[in-house]
């Protein structure tokens, strides 16, 4: 009767736990071996899963690991925020009803807290990066284009506060020639920039095949392989969603 209720992942999709033959556990595990986001949006015997939460979770983890600011996922955050609002109304309505419904409301509430946590974490790690590299980001068109409207406004304001502070507390008392905040001296710059060559750990999501990670070095990248590499060597693969940072 189990099949009546639908299995969403491949884990038990192929498995018949009641069958006489011992199931091949390694085969069953294939599905479970993936990371957190491998479940596709599927309709299966009335069960369905929505990819958005998984996508946002992956987006957050990528952002957390990447040394540089990644493009803001406007649509995804917008959609999920709206779904959270709608679900909140449902929860409120349920709580008014019977005690049995209050229990269900509590379950829904728990999921909402989880999603809100992911959204908050995502936005927070981005703001941290913007503050850290403000002198670069606020004056780089490329980086400004990766920000949300709110982040752009924050960056502009944060930069002016930051500069004002440095001027008022110190720089204005120095000779004019020493007041600059973005000077280059040899190969030493005053502007803090992220190190794009820093090491990241990535997992391959779809078979990439031979991939040139440096001018001389090629690696065969297959699904589920895990690599420690420099961020700039796999940036393309991250943009095309062939890998995730873990």
């Amino acid at each position, binding site marked *: 009767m*189990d099949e009546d*209720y639908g299995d*969403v*992942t491949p*884990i*038990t999709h192929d498995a018949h*736990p009641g069958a006489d033959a011992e199931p091949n*556990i*390694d085969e*069953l*595990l294939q599905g*479970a*071996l993936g*990371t*957190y986001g491998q*479940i596709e949006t599927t309709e299966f015997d*009335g*069960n*369905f*899963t*929505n990819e958005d*939460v*998984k996508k946002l*979770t992956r987006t957050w*983890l990528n952002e*957390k*690991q990447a040394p540089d600011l990644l493009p803001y996922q406007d649509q995804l955050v917008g959609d*999920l925020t709206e779904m*959270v609002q709608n*679900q909140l109304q449902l929860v409120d309505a349920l709580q008014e009803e019977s005690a049995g419904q209050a*229990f*269900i409301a509590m379950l*829904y509430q*728990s999921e909402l807290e*989880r*999603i809100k*946590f992911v959204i908050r974490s995502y936005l927070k790690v981005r703001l941290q990066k913007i*503050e*850290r590299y403000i002198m670069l980001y606020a004056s780089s068109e490329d980086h400004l284009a990766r920000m949300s409207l709110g982040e752009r406004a924050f960056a502009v304001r944060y930069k002016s506060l930051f500069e004002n502070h440095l001027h008022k507390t110190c720089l204005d008392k120095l000779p004019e020639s020493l007041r600059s905040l973005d000077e280059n001296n040899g*190969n*030493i710059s005053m*502007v*803090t*920039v*992220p*190190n794009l*060559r*820093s*090491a*990241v*750990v990535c997992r391959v999501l779809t078979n990439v095949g031979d991939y040139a*990670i440096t001018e001389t*070095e090629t690696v065969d990248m297959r699904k*589920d*392989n*895990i*690599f*420690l*590499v420099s961020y700039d060597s796999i940036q393309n693969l991250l943009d095309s969603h062939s890998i995730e940072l*873990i």
Partner: protein
Amino acid sequence: MLTTKPNPNVALPELEFLAEDTLISIIPTHRMDTLHFISGSYGPFKPPNRIEVPLWLARLLKKKRRCHIQPPAWLDVTYLQRKYDEEQRQPDRFSGLPFAYMEIAHVLLECAAADDIPQAHTVQRLLQDLREIRQSKARAGLAAVNPIYLQMDNLSAVEINEIRPMFCQAFNQLQRLESQGPEYGGMPNNYESSQPSSSYQY
């Protein structure tokens, strides 16, 4: 600059949070209509029929005594013993276990060890043994770090998180040394060095 650098390490509670999206089989003890979550619908719950739900939901239902948990096939004495033997046979490779096996096992043993997991004590001991043998292999891997790449298949989330600070710093340092021609007296210092943060104990 004034602000702290974003820490790429994931805290252990965060790893557990992520693992809680894994689907787990349960047998509900109470009848309940289909639940429509944002991330998907689960149900209807009709005892004694088995159903798959995310681990966080299974944990909640278990705590309210509304379900029995069916431990995943790998959370089993025979299976774990086999994996342990495999780890011993292959000193330079890791056996395939779910990416979040430690976190899932931790949650399940915490909320369902007493009644749903057979031989929970032995399972726990085997997990500990596995963890130790894999940990020493992972640490030995530091010798293999080079400034190009390092393949680390089958390492789990917690294990990666543990070696990350050390391995990444070694990688960055080697890269810096390599890119430094003899004409440079010092290191280019407009790049940040990554500070190792403390490792997490499971």
